């Protein structure tokens, strides 16, 4: 049989990974460079000179010690014990501290070794994030040890002491008149009360604004509040561009709740349904049971049309709504009337259990919120799945209108002193906003920052800021839930937090400070909270809370509430709808700016691990790109990597094009957060900034993310986009399966195609007498958020290799999230598959290693012994899953040079730093297995599920990854592997992986055969 015959006969459903492949697989294949062909080059031979790769090496650590220790003449090593051993530290054993993230309010669990934090995870006892944190939070540990951090405060560009700063503050703050403070949203009750007592004018803005939601809530219900969306209660979810699984709102909390409602473990056969109307293809749309591609200018029309239909079904018409009938809207927006009708019908059916969320773009953003609020109220979802009353969120408080009043005050000269923290105005806003001139005109600017950046260049006083892991504080993510932020390391540099400074400065004009220091200030706030949470003594309660990490009411997640909807808000939205829709005759493009899960607002852009984290949707790293639809690219003759000039009357940038399925024609999209000019050696100059596009006459000071009238022209230049996807093709083999809920109910094994069940083996089976480690990954739960990728890199000292090396396909991440598209090439369905070493029983890598560097352990691990590896790469060639990573260079430190301080502190001492010429891969976190086994053995028992959890499992907000002992039939992993949806990838190769996947189930009608890319024979 010829190759193509084999393929067509074995494919149940054709998945594809990129646009070119879906169009012409044959051509694509021919043009694709070999997966593992990469030209050997010597270090320093690359064209770009010093360069990112050298910095990458700086961001790693030293294998030098290891190589020296191997020599016969060993250098004398010294053991330096403590003079006074801190009571709680046993060198060699980790300590765990509960803390919290000041930006999201999520509870954290910080692992420290010998007094230095090496890993941050979610606190499982915290009722909001319940043990999970995002990729950016996972990576925050690397920000702490960033060598580019600002180490001393500066006055007018020169290092200064804090005494000098305090003296300057004493003058500037002598009277509170004319003192303004500009911050990001403040979740800390202590910090808020200190600012209130100081009496400064306080302005908060969010760099990823939620102002539309807040304003909409104010107009609809009377109070400007960020509701707590209860995805854990919603059986039917409609999202209009609210990317709640990616970067909108309290994403980790949402993801946790959302995945719980969709888990099909045990005998459960029901799951929630998600319908997404989406402009730019993002994670939420990719996880939807039905995704509808829309133009962002049509958001309000679609919402009004749903409102019309819902009103019609429940017999509650509203005057003026009739022009938004689905038929009319279909004409205006191209969204099929039956989709609207069906959504409306389902919303009514799931009354009280549904949830509609939206994120508005452009001038109708608040009107859109008002419609959504109307729908939630009229469908009785308000109070059930939306909590705006009992425990609303504190995470977003920003208000760009108040920022405008700050600007006005500056321009009228009434601002004498401006304290800025958590906001980088010169990077955030367009130049044309005149922010630079405004800030320069303020006599005293105190700017808190971790790095010298865009704004610090014009601030007179630059205040080196603590990392949250170095500071005392507290935080309240939702009403009535409080956590203490406790330092896990003394400040590495001469830095202070905003709270430290404000407490210090509170004596100015008063003679006495509010509290001795930040710690005392937090304690005094908590003395006020004490009575509400505990009847024991304050000290007991404080100690307990410090240990558990959270104070929350017991019945926090129960209870319902309801607010009265103000019909005026809906009437004004109906009026606003008249001017909604695409600008007719607009032949130019519409640019939609979004934020990426890896990068957010760009404040962590000096973090190599985040720069190298593939965007979950495009799998591109190291910079942004212009996402365009396939037909737009085709029509204009653009190919992936063609650099185009994107311009408006006000601004222009050059950026590579990338074809993204799921966009409507005429719409292009790019990520914010890139194009930093002044941040650090890693972040500077990566990608381009779109800040200058965000000025708008209608949006006021708030950055406008929806830009019309954009002209795009080809420059003729090209760049290879550092994408990690093309390197991991699957050559048309079936490795993921999906099905519909209906089919799954009839047959749990639906959708799974087994070509050669139980193939014969030429190997004798391994015998596992003790443990047999295995993993189950539920593809139905995985949302692709990529927190696991970052967690793995931090836990296992996996280095970032830099843009040039990623372009050559040499990224080092041990776990990757493969993304497969299927179905309609214009608006496809997506499956995410976390792919890591499968720890095969019949491991193809083990049989080809000439030096026995990779072997099988008696508890089922595929072991990699670095110091035995000679780098033949045979194992990698023979691995069908392509999960082995080769160290082409000394990725941890420059050759023959020590690591830059303080990077050695960041490394996990339990994992070897791999040197050049060595193969590496996922170990199932063997250091955790060994530690867990050891602990259990000391206690005279078998290691259970709570003894050993892998880093990716800990990080997974949707609990898709379960690790454990397959020899224990009662273990969760054993039960999952026995589940009907369970399958192994590429079963026909008979590698017998220790990882099984559980098939993806979509809550929609079964696809007709015609929709599959060829039937199964």
């Amino acid at each position, binding site marked *: 049989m010829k190759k193509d015959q084999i393929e067509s006969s074995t494919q149940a459903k054709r998945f594809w990974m990129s646009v070119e492949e879906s169009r012409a697989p044959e051509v694509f294949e021919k043009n694709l460079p070999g997966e593992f062909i990469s030209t050997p080059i010597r270090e320093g031979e690359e064209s770009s000179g010093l360069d990112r790769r050298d910095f990458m090496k700086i961001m790693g650590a030293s294998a030098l010690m290891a190589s020296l220790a191997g020599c016969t003449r060993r250098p004398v090593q010294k053991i330096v014990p403590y003079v006074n051993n801190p009571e709680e530290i046993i060198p060699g*054993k980790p300590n765990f501290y509960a803390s919290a993230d000041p930006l999201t309010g999520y509870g954290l669990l910080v692992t420290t070794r010998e007094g230095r934090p090496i890993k941050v995870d979610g606190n499982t006892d915290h009722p909001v994030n319940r043990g999970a944190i995002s990729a950016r939070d996972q990576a925050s540990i690397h920000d702490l040890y960033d060598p580019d951090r600002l180490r001393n405060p500066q006055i007018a560009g020169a290092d200064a002491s804090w005494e000098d700063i305090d003296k300057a503050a004493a003058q500037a703050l002598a009277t509170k008149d004319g003192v303004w403070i500009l911050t990001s949203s403040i979740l800390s009750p202590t910090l808020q009360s200190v600012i209130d007592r100081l009496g400064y004018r306080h302005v908060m803005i969010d760099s990823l604004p939620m102002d539309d939601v807040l304003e909409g809530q104010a107009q609809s219900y009377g109070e400007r509040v960020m509701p707590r969306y209860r995805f854990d209660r919603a059986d039917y979810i409609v999202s209009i561009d609210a990317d709640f699984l990616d970067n909108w709102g309290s994403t980790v909390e949402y993801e946790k709740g959302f995945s719980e409602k969709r888990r099909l473990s045990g005998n459960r056969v029901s799951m929630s349904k998600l319908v997404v109307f989406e402009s730019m293809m993002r994670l939420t749309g990719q996880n939807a049971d039905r995704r509808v591609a829309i133009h962002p200018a049509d958001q309000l029309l679609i919402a009004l049309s749903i409102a019309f239909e819902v009103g019609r079904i429940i017999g509650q018409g509203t005057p003026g709504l009739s022009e938004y009938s689905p038929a009319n809207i279909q004409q205006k927006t191209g969204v099929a009337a039956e989709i609207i009708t069906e959504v409306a019908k389902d919303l009514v059916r799931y009354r009280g259990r549904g949830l509609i969320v939206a994120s508005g773009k452009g001038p109708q953003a608040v009107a859109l919120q008002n419609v959504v609020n109307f729908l939630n109220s009229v469908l009785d979802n308000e109070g059930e799945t939306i909590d705006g009353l009992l425990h609303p969120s504190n995470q977003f408080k920003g208000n760009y209108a108040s920022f405008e009043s700050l600007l006005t005050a500056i321009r009228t000269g009434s601002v004498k002193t401006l304290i800025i923290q958590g906001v980088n105005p010169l990077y955030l806003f367009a130049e044309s906003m005149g922010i630079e001139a405004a800030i320069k005109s303020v006599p005293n600017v105190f700017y808190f920052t971790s790095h010298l950046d865009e704004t610090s260049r014009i601030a007179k006083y630059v205040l080196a800021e603590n990392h949250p892991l170095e500071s005392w504080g507290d935080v309240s993510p939702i009403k009535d839930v409080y956590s203490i932020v406790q330092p896990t390391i003394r400040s590495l540099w001469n830095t202070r937090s905003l709270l430290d400074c404000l407490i210090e400065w509170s004596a100015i004009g008063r003679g006495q400070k509010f509290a001795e220091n930040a710690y005392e200030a937090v304690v005094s706030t908590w003395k006020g909270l004490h009575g509400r949470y505990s009847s024991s003594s304050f000290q007991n309660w404080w100690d307990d809370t410090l240990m558990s990490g959270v104070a929350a009411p017991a019945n926090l997640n129960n209870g319902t509430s309801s607010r009265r909807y103000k019909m005026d808000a809906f009437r004004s939205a109906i009026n606003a709808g008249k001017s909604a829709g695409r600008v007719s005759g607009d032949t130019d493009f519409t640019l939609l700016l979004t934020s990426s899960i890896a990068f957010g607002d760009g404040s962590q852009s000096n973090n190599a691990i985040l720069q190298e984290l593939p965007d979950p949707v495009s799998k591109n790293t190291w910079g942004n790109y212009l996402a365009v639809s396939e037909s737009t690219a085709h029509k204009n003759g653009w190919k992936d990597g063609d650099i185009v000039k994107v311009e408006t009357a006000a601004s222009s940038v050059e950026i590579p094009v990338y074809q993204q399925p799921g966009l409507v024609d005429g719409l292009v999209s790019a990520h914010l957060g890139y194009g930093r000019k002044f941040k650090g050696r890693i972040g500077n100059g990566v990608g381009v900034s779109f800040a200058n596009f965000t000025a708008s006459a209608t949006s006021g000071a708030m950055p406008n993310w929806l830009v019309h009238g954009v002209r795009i022209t080809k420059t003729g230049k090209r760049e290879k986009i550092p994408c990690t996807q093309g390197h991991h093709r699957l050559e048309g083999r079936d490795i993921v399966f999906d099905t519909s809920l209906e089919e799954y109910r009839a047959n749990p094994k639906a959708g799974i195609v087994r070509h050669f069940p139980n193939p014969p083996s030429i190997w004798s089976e391994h015998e596992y007498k003790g443990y047999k480690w295995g993993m189950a990954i539920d593809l139905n739960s995985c949302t692709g958020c990529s927190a696991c990728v970052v967690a793995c890199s931090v836990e296992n000292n996996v280095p970032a290799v830099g843009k040039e090396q990623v372009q050559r396909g040499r990224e080092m991440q041990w776990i990757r999230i493969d993304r497969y598209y299927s179905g309609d090439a214009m608006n496809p369905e997506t499956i995410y598959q976390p792919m890591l070493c499968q720890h095969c029983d019949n491991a193809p890598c083990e049989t080809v290693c000439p030096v026995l560097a990779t072997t099988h352990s008696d508890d089922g691990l595929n072991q990699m012994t670095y110091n035995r590896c000679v780098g033949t790469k045979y194992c990698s060639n023979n691995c069908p899953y392509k999960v082995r990573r080769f160290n082409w260079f000394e990725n941890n430190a420059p050759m023959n040079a020590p690591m830059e301080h303080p990077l050695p502190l960041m490394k996990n001492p339990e994992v070897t730093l791999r040197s050049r010429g060595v193969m590496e891969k996922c170990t199932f976190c063997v250091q955790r297995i060994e530690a867990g086994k050891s602990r259990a053995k000391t206690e005279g028992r078998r290691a259970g599920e709570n003894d050993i959890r892998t880093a990716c499992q800990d990080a997974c907000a949707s609990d898709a990854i379960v690790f454990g002992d397959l020899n224990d039939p009662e273990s969760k992993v054993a039960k999952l592997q026995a589940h009907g949806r369970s399958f192994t990838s590429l079963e026909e190769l008979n590698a017998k992986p220790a990882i099984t996947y559980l098939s993806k189930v979509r809550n929609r009608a079964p696809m007709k055969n015609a929709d599959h890319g060829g039937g199964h024979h």
Partner: protein
Amino acid sequence: MRISADSLQSSLCIKIRKFNQQSVSNVDKSPHANVPSTAVCMNCHRVVKTDSPWIQKLTEAYNNNQPIQWVNVHVLPDFVYFNHERHIQRGISCDTCHGNVAAMEKVEQVSPFTMGWCINCHRQPENQAPLNCNTCHR
């Protein structure tokens, strides 16, 4: 006995094992054998043998809050993860690997500390010790 930094180290190794019937080297709790903090030495040496120049040196370092830098005699490569806790919990005594340190004037390495030497012990069936690469390398 002639007093030297080395011999001080010898006697320490024993003393730190069981100080007041309690391990201060944490060798039964941690993968690493901890050298105790200077404060532990000073518990006795505040009053014991204060005329010794070595003890005076120790005291001076302690008073100046300076750690003592001990020479590491038993050096394993960085890619080897040896776990003291497991061996002590199994009842293997210190001198099995380290020799009779108490009798040494200057601490020296008595066993080769090579992989073959480790494995020799691990593969004795009566020891029921693991032979996986991952046991020591990761």
